């Protein structure tokens, strides 16, 4: 043993920690929750500020004035879209060429693993059209992207119209230091994915696409436009990207600065900012905004076309025009000017946006919570797992404490223990693998035997496997090692606790919101579970706090927060569609939430389930 450590003091510390373990854990849990809820309280947050010197201020003279032309182009686009029954490729190519851009098209096709019922698509085939405005005096080493999705129906025509009008205006300016790419993509995210993969010569998701014929330099930033009305009352900024990635906070600051300058109402999560932070309503409003961001980020999907850019380290955001019943409206010229100002400032960038935060939560557009402030909330929850593990470790070690030198002796009886632990671990993970693989692969078989659609088959198979996991004969270790011992479940729980701590810790580092939500639901039950508790009650509690139910709660809370509360039946349908979307997002764009839950979190939870039924 180390000469420098005092065994007596260490013993005192461990005895204190074991004696007060439960109260400390309870305090930690409550403190974690309170800390998190406190983050939305304005005095605890920081005011946003522009960190990037190159974008410094809003010192730009916005001269864009062809809002009317943009709306005209939107109407023309709409007519051609209807005529072509989809993307009017020829018209777009022609009108972009007429504006002096280098125009290229890219066709792509993709067969979804199962039909997407939300967007009604299965075999996707489409074309992206993009035009490159070359910077007149600069080398072609850097680029900016403005993208507008070509959506079915009448939506988003104004975005395309504004895109073309901006292209025409930008073409006549000589101050561009970066090429500007104007992209109209079909089939929203699938088109963006195809274009990005083509641009960067990667193929992550097995998409089929034709190679890009024209390239500009490395993309520094991207803005995605979503406008579906001629006038707007406010602009909403959408930041959450794939896997909970966020763009640099300076991009949000830039948007906010120009909204302030031009007097445009701006929202985040569709919520306007309130100034009365010291009232209960003000605080609730900020907390709701932040909770919405947490929920959106946790679900790991891309909430706009910008979301896929983030994977390539391209700072991107979606700007969505909202036309509500407010009296004060803004025309397309103002929106165009706002974009002009932002693009002009992005044009001044000398290096990628990196000065400001990448990890943050926004209770409003002018206030942010940095990673240093929100991480302790998660840390307080995660430390519970470690404290419980320490407690178990001390309990496991105390009988063998008599023989300090008998390490080899102590390992002799624990060798069957390895099997005791290994069996449930392996079985749980096999269940996880089944949950990950089977739903998609067994859909045809399921469709044959049951009167359901493919999508339903996939989701219901997933739920069936999830439920079957609970009923698996978890006491297989008895066949191998006889009666489950007291020692056995403690070792298993120790392993499971450390495993869960590592899992949640890693998750929270990448996607804080997901890690935090999982910690809030999983930590209390996993920390307290033992085989000696009333079985039925505990089993019910465990199921209610399992990952699947967490998703269900999130669906209800989300609907509540966006002020569209749903009943149980509707909520259940939404839950099913969330699961199918999660699986699709993983297959199409590589979202990691579904595999994380299926392959790691669920098996880990099963291990605790095992402990409950230990005998």
């Amino acid at each position, binding site marked *: 043993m180390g000469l420098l450590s005092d065994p007596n003091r260490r013993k005192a510390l461990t005895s204190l920690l074991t004696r007060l373990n439960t109260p400390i854990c309870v305090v930690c849990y409550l403190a974690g929750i309170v800390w998190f809820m406190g983050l939305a309280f304005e005095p605890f947050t920081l005011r946003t500020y522009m960190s990037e*010197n*190159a974008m*410094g*201020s809003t*010192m*730009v*003279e916005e001269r864009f004035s062809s809002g009317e032309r943009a709306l005209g182009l939107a109407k023309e686009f709409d007519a051609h879209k209807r005529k072509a029954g989809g993307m009017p490729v020829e018209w777009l190519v022609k009108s972009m060429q007429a504006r002096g851009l280098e125009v290229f098209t890219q066709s792509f096709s993709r067969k979804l693993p199962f039909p997407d019922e939300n967007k009604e698509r299965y075999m996707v085939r489409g074309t992206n059209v993009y035009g490159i405005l070359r*910077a*007149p*005096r*600069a080398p072609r080493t850097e680029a900016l992207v403005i993208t507008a999705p070509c959506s079915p129906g009448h939506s988003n025509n104004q975005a395309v119209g504004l895109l073309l009008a901006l292209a025409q205006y930008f073409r006549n*300016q*000589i*101050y*561009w*230091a970066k090429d500007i790419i104007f992209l109209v993509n079909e089939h929203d995210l699938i088109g963006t994915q195809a274009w990005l993969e083509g641009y960067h010569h990667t193929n992550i998701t097995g998409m089929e696409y034709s190679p890009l014929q024209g390239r500009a330099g490395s993309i520094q930033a991207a803005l995605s436009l979503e406008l579906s009305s001629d006038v707007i009352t406010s602009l909403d900024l959408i930041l959450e990207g794939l896997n909970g990635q966020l763009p640099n906070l300076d991009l949000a600051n830039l948007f906010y600065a120009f909204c302030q300058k031009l007097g445009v109402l701006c929202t985040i999560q569709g919520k306007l900012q309130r100034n009365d932070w010291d009232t209960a309503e003000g605080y609730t409003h900020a907390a709701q905004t932040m909770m919405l961001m947490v929920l959106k980020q946790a679900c790991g999907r891309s909430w706009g076309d910008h979301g896929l850019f983030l994977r390539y380290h391209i700072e991107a955001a979606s700007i969505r025009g909202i036309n509500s019943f407010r009296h004060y409206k803004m025309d397309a010229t103002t929106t165009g000017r706002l974009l002009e100002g932002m693009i*002009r400032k992005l*044009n*001044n960038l*000398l290096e990628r946006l990196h000065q400001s935060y990448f990890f943050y939560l926004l209770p409003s557009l002018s206030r942010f919570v940095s990673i240093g402030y929100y991480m302790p909330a998660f840390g307080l929850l995660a430390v519970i797992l470690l404290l419980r593990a320490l407690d178990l470790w001390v309990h496991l070690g105390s009988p063998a404490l008599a023989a300090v030198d008998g390490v080899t002796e102590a390992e002799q009886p624990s060798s069957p223990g390895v099997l005791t632990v290994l069996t449930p671990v392996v079985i749980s993970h096999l269940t996880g693998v089944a949950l990950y693989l089977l739903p998609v692969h067994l859909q045809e078989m399921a469709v044959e035997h049951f009167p359901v659609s493919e999508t339903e088959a996939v989701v219901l198979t997933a739920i069936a496997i999830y439920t079957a996991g609970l009923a698996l004969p978890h006491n297989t270790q008895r066949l191998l090692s006889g009666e489950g011992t007291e020692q056995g479940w403690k070792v298993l729980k120790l392993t499971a606790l450390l495993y869960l701590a590592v899992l949640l810790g890693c998750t929270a580092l990448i996607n804080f919101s997901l890690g935090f939500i999982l910690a809030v639901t999983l930590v209390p039950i996993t920390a307290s579970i033992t085989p000696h508790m009333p079985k039925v009650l505990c089993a019910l509690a465990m199921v209610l706090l399992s990952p699947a139910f967490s998703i269900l709660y999130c669906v209800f809370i989300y609907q509540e927060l966006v002020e569209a509360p749903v009943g149980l039946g509707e909520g259940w349908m939404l839950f099913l569609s969330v699961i199918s979307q999660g699986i699709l997002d993983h297959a199409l764009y590589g979202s990691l939430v579904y595999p994380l839950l299926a392959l790691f979190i669920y098996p880990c939870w099963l291990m605790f389930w095992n402990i409950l039924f230990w005998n």
Partner: protein
Amino acid sequence: MDYYNLMTICAFINLLVSIPQAYSNYVEDKQSWTVFSSGHTNNWAVLVCTSRFWFNYRHVANTLSVYRSVKRLGIPDSHIVLMLADDMACNYRNPKPATVFSHKNMELNVYGDDVEVDYRGYEVTVENFLRVLTGRLPPSTPRSKRLLSDDRSNILIYLTGHGGNGFLKFQDSEEISNMELADAFEQMWQKRRYNELLFIIDTCQGASMYERFYSPNLMALASSQVGEDSLSHQPDLAIGVHLMDKYTFYLLEFLEEVHPASQANMNDLFKVCPQSQCVSTPGHRTDLFQRDPGSVLITDFFGSVRKVEITKDTIHLTSSVKPPIQRSGSGDMQIESLTYVDQLPVAEIIHQVTALIYYDADFACYPPSLTDRKESTAPLASGKETSGSWPEMFRRANALGLPTLPALHHKTPKI
């Protein structure tokens, strides 16, 4: 005071060339020298912008506006060392190519038609700046990139960029400290590279940059005190950046009023940009300067003004322009002892390395008494040699260098 300076230089030349008779002629003929009130015969300017990047447009405009002023007041390009760390006129983001404006609404284009930038882009480094000041440039450096000043030169040094307490940032990678700058000026003084020096800096906490100066004949101005920021001026929406900094903007406004015959003096310069205009508090330091700032004309530093007095009286200049003196009478001994030692005899014999060591040893031998020229002049003028005088130096180098040459030769590795 001027005569005193004059005597110094005269005595110096005298001693080296060993013409005791000529010396007396110089001193006696004071009439012709009174026209030079400041004692300088030539003017130099070193103008430095240390910042890169488009958003630092204003620093380039600052420097160019001073460049414009000194050029207008008569300092030729050959006597201006202009260092610009970035090229704003040709920046892609400049909506008005080939211009750098100092005023809103494009009132004044300080880029002008004829700009000669001596050090540009990544050439603007602390090392190059110090080398220019101290004259330790590689032999290949063209004359246009050198500060070829002498001890009759008045030098204007203007710096602008981003600074802090005790330093000025160069580019984005290095900085010069106030102590380094003070030491560089001391070297210049010891190497007799200036007569008087005016130092102006427009940067945050600019006063910190001159507080360590210790060499004589320095006058310094700064745009802000320690702990203060210097602020920008003239935000221009069309160009999209701030065009200038407040201090230099008002400095330029002041200089635009100065003409070659102007009698504006340094006290007027100190009043430029009061706190009401600048927000920061401009500072100045005159304690190292020998003359009264009120008697120092702006054109002594910003211009290259040759005083011309029209007179109908005949002035006798004959004695001073008298050609070579008969040396035969003085005797061989004297001539031999006071000729220049060949500065680099080594190069003829062996490698460059040995030569460099010799060269450095030469500079290392400067005695401290040389720092104050006034003290050393009296004995020089009287014809005696003190330990610090030049002939002594040469002799010492001689004694040091020549006997050890063979030894050095053996030790030097082949390169």
